[in-house]
């Protein structure tokens, strides 16, 4: 019939997955507001957790936008924003030696040590 694939799971209704450009990096014609990453503390006693990102011209606007976009239903008691370009990240490659040292140091885990069952409170 259509010869054009649609995915229903374009969420709010079917959208075509063929005959539509996918966009390439950095092709917008306007200078964009910088991208900020947003972290929200859900309630007192919890860490801030990354929830997403947004665009803002400066830090203050980023905080205001973060409140409107990510905390409309009491999702948080505190918000951090940081420009995405300031985030340093490890390589996603599993072969990366970054996490290897923890693999061969089993003695760092409590289960490494066998203690008789009748010793209390261990």
């Amino acid at each position: 019939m259509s010869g054009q694939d649609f995915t229903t799971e374009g969420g709010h209704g079917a959208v075509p997955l063929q005959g539509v450009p996918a966009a390439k990096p950095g092709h917008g014609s306007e200078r964009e507001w910088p991208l900020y990453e947003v972290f929200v503390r859900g309630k007192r006693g919890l860490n801030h957790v990354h929830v997403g990102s947004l665009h803002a011209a400066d830090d203050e606007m980023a905080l205001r936008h973060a409140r409107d976009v990510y905390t409309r239903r009491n999702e948080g008691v505190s918000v951090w924003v940081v420009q995405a370009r300031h985030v340093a990240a490890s390589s996603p490659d599993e072969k990366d030696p970054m996490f290897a040292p923890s693999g061969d140091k089993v003695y760092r885990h409590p289960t490494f040590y066998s203690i008789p069952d009748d010793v209390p409170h261990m």
Partner: protein
Amino acid sequence: MTTSDTATDAQLSALEARFEDTIARSERIEPRDWMPEGYRKTLVRQIAQHAHSEIIGMQPEGNWITRAPSLRRKAILLAKVQDEAGHGLYLYSAAETLGVSRGELTEMLIEGRQKYSSIFNYPTLSYADVGTIGWLVDGAAICNQVPLCRTSYGPYGRAMIRVCKEESFHQRQGYELLMTMMQGTEEQRAMVQESVNRFWWPALMMFGPPDEDSPNTAQSMAWGIKRNTNDDLRQRFVDMSVPQAEALGVTFPDPDLKWNAERGHHDFGEPDWDEFMQVVKGNGPCNAQRIAHRRTAHEDGAWVREAALAFADRQREAARA
């Protein structure tokens, strides 16, 4: 990812194997992981157009904000339309993790190069449409979106979890609105039925063409991007909606709609797929109006975006001096 440009064949097949392995274990793919170009492009199209749908989706209901019949209904509608903006922003944010720019996505929307859900190209002719959209259109969206919380791409799944939490409010406020009208006058009941008659078939079309006309479904399902076929989701939606309609006291405009005890599902008629394709191609009742409105909002806002940047630049310079 640029890795593929420089990788040797052996390296590439190792990367592919690891990707396939991650999918097979039902683990998530994260933004900086290597991924096949086809996977990335499919995701960009799907997430971007989902975002566009949320943003354009503000218009049909926004039409009624100034004419809502009470302060209570106006506050609810404002909150709902604000949520749609929020959903669009979560999704644009997820699309950007795939390396595309927000600005370009917006331009592709207003130039009509990327699409959005056809349902928003139908007009909201009566206030009852606000209720029907919440009940049927958001109900269909929930059917689509709940399985997407488990989609293989991490940022998309996380955005969908947030969206789904809020979507439940949307559906319930719509249904409650219609219940209230059904308890009103004969005229109000007729308004609800008329609205349901207009939206039932377009809501069924939201699930897309039948499975046999969706040749790439298998690939999307293998990648874990898509979790159910169009027909499966449509059936689920019909089965859910029939008892809700009975409770409300309205009917659906389909003479073929009846329970099939053998299948354990409702049988129903075929939507008009020619109409669907016409609307997708831009010939629906409101396509031009929706895009023109979005373009005007974008262009009228340009000076604000520029001024905010200029202000931020100046503040930074002042801080350095």
